[in-house]
């Protein structure tokens, strides 16, 4: 009996001891759910801001026009090719990768205009709020600072993925009507994966431009800086690579090791560019016949069957590229987080 009483006593004391902890836990949880709700509200607001903006309408118009052009070009090329030997293998994917030479193919358009869309949606994300004085008002509401950045990124990325996927489906649908040849499940999955990768790629540019908008107080500066980086990687980087390549070109009569090393070095250099990474991904996913992204020696090629890669193998091949893209995105986000969290926020400064 006495023991039972003691036990009871111990239980009540334990309860008393636990109570404040539970209470604080509850308030923490309440705060957490409140902050989640605030995050959702911010995403909604950002998203509707983008949808309403002229900038988005113009971008969308450009991209849709480009896509329709590229489908037209792909279909004329397909028809010109006729029922050739390669017609039976992955015909559907050719809508995305084929061109009659006058207008670039769909993948090129995505690779070229995608970054522009990312930059356009992100370059003034933070600094415009700052210069309009809304940032200090917003940050004095009970929201976490990082939620603000995350909301900006999430809303824009959501928009980007909607645009890219709907474009992808548009192209597929049009292609289906015109060539009348349905995709195989594998082709469908490949296209979906390609669209997903495109979202990741645009997400990188989006994050880069948000980073610049945190760093630079003027929206014009961050826009110019982002466009400069974009132009550098799409235009100048390959020129520089060519120059370097000519400079370190080994002797024609060099050993295999030397030549291999040269090619590997060149690959490594060119893969610093996110555009190159995305190009690799596109090629591998949409052209299953591509077996390797590097050099292959004769030794490796002999006895290989000339057949397309299986889907799993293609994914395996682009895995490093995908990792690199995601890593670049994460680095940009980390940097903007670091800068933004430590920034002092005053009205209009």
């Amino acid at each position: 009996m006495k023991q039972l009483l003691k036990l009871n006593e111990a239980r009540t004391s334990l309860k008393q001891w636990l109570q404040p902890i539970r209470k604080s836990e509850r308030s923490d949880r309440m705060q957490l759910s409140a902050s989640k709700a605030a995050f959702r509200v911010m995403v909604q607001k950002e998203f509707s801001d983008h949808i309403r903006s002229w900038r988005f309408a113009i971008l969308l118009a450009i991209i849709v026009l480009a896509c329709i052009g590229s489908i037209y070009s792909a279909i004329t090329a397909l028809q010109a090719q006729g029922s050739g030997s390669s017609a039976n293998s992955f015909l559907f994917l050719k809508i995305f990768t084929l061109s009659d030479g006058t207008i670039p193919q769909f993948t090129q358009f995505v690779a070229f205009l995608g970054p522009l869309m990312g930059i356009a949606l992100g370059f003034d994300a933070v600094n415009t709020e700052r210069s309009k004085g809304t940032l200090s008002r917003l940050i004095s509401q009970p929201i976490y600072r990082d939620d603000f950045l995350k909301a900006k990124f999430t809303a824009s990325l959501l928009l980007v993925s909607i645009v890219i996927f709907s474009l992808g489906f548009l192209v597929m649908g049009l292609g289906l009507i015109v060539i009348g040849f349905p995709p195989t499940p594998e082709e469908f999955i490949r296209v979906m994966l390609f669209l997903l990768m495109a979202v990741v790629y645009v997400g990188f540019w989006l994050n880069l431009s948000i980073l610049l908008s945190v760093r630079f107080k003027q929206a014009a500066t961050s826009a110019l800086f982002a466009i400069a980086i974009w132009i550098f990687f799409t235009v100048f980087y390959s020129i520089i690579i060519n120059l370097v390549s000519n400079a370190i070109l080994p002797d024609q009569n060099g050993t295999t090791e030397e030549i291999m090393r040269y090619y590997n070095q060149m690959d490594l250099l060119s893969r610093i560019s996110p555009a190159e990474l995305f190009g690799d991904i596109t090629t591998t996913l949409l052209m299953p016949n591509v077996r390797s992204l590097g050099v292959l020696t004769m030794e490796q090629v002999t006895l290989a069957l000339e057949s397309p890669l299986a889907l799993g193998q293609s994914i395996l091949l682009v895995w490093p590229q995908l990792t690199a893209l995601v890593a670049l995105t994460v680095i940009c986000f980390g940097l903007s987080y670091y800068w933004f969290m430590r920034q002092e926020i005053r009205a209009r400064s």
Partner: protein
Amino acid sequence: MEPVIELTRLSKKYDHYTAVNQLDLTIYRGEVFGLLGPNGAGKTTTILMMLGLTERTSGDVKVLGLDPNQHAITIKTKVGYMPDDIGFYDDRSAIDNLIYTARLNGIKEKEARLQAEQLLHRVGLADAATKKVSSFSRGMRQRLGLADVLIKQPEIIILDEPTLGIDPEGVRELLELISQLSKEEGITVLLCSHHLHQVQQVCDRVGLFVKGELVACGNIHQLSQAINQDSLTTIELEIKHYPASLQAALQELEQVVSIQAQSQPNGEEMMTALSISCTEDITPVIAKLAAEHTELYMIHRKGYGLDDIYHQYFEGGETRETALKAK
């Protein structure tokens, strides 16, 4: 009285510049406190530290008993802050801006709309509720700002230069609204301004803030007493010439502590402005002397009104020091 904001030895240093220096300040529940100081005195920096929007260099801040570095979110649900030159989303309507703020504070959409409508009515913007904020005048923006601060139903509101750029009538209305809020709803108000007159109309207590330091704190009466501590009376007069004979005569008076003379243009001619510190009020004597020696344009005894408090602390800080030295 329960303190709601406590600052102890609070300092903030930017690279080489000290914005706030060892500040001690306590604000109690329900009072309207005016933080008064010239531009760049560190008022805004102090507010930012209270809300955890900038990191402090040293010292301690407690807002509602909580440290803003650790409980920023809790504090921000209970404290409304209206920055100077407040910004809104220009392409949205006034009511949309308010609803957004309310929803960030965890208020459900329906309720938020209801509250926003009530508040807009209260600040006199009911007619402009659906207009875009870009079409608002400065005064309307400030009033919308007040509604924005109130929609979270705060315990404390901090207003940074709320009357900046509003016409006198607008200022009067805004100040009335503020004192009404504090009386009816028991909200603690911290008001930052460099307009002494406006602050004096609504504030229970005033803190004078110069170069990052609180030089005086109390109600207006206490402040003017503090200034009068040296119990000198200043008499100002304007005369045509300042002959040596007058100077000698003035200096002979035993009540005169110091004389400052300054020649000023008066139309085509020049005149002299004298400022005489005396231990006693001897205005009639001086007037008589001046009239004997030269032509007297104007004479008056300086009372310690609010303007003087302002001048003494902010602008005439140096003359005050010299006056003290002379004594």
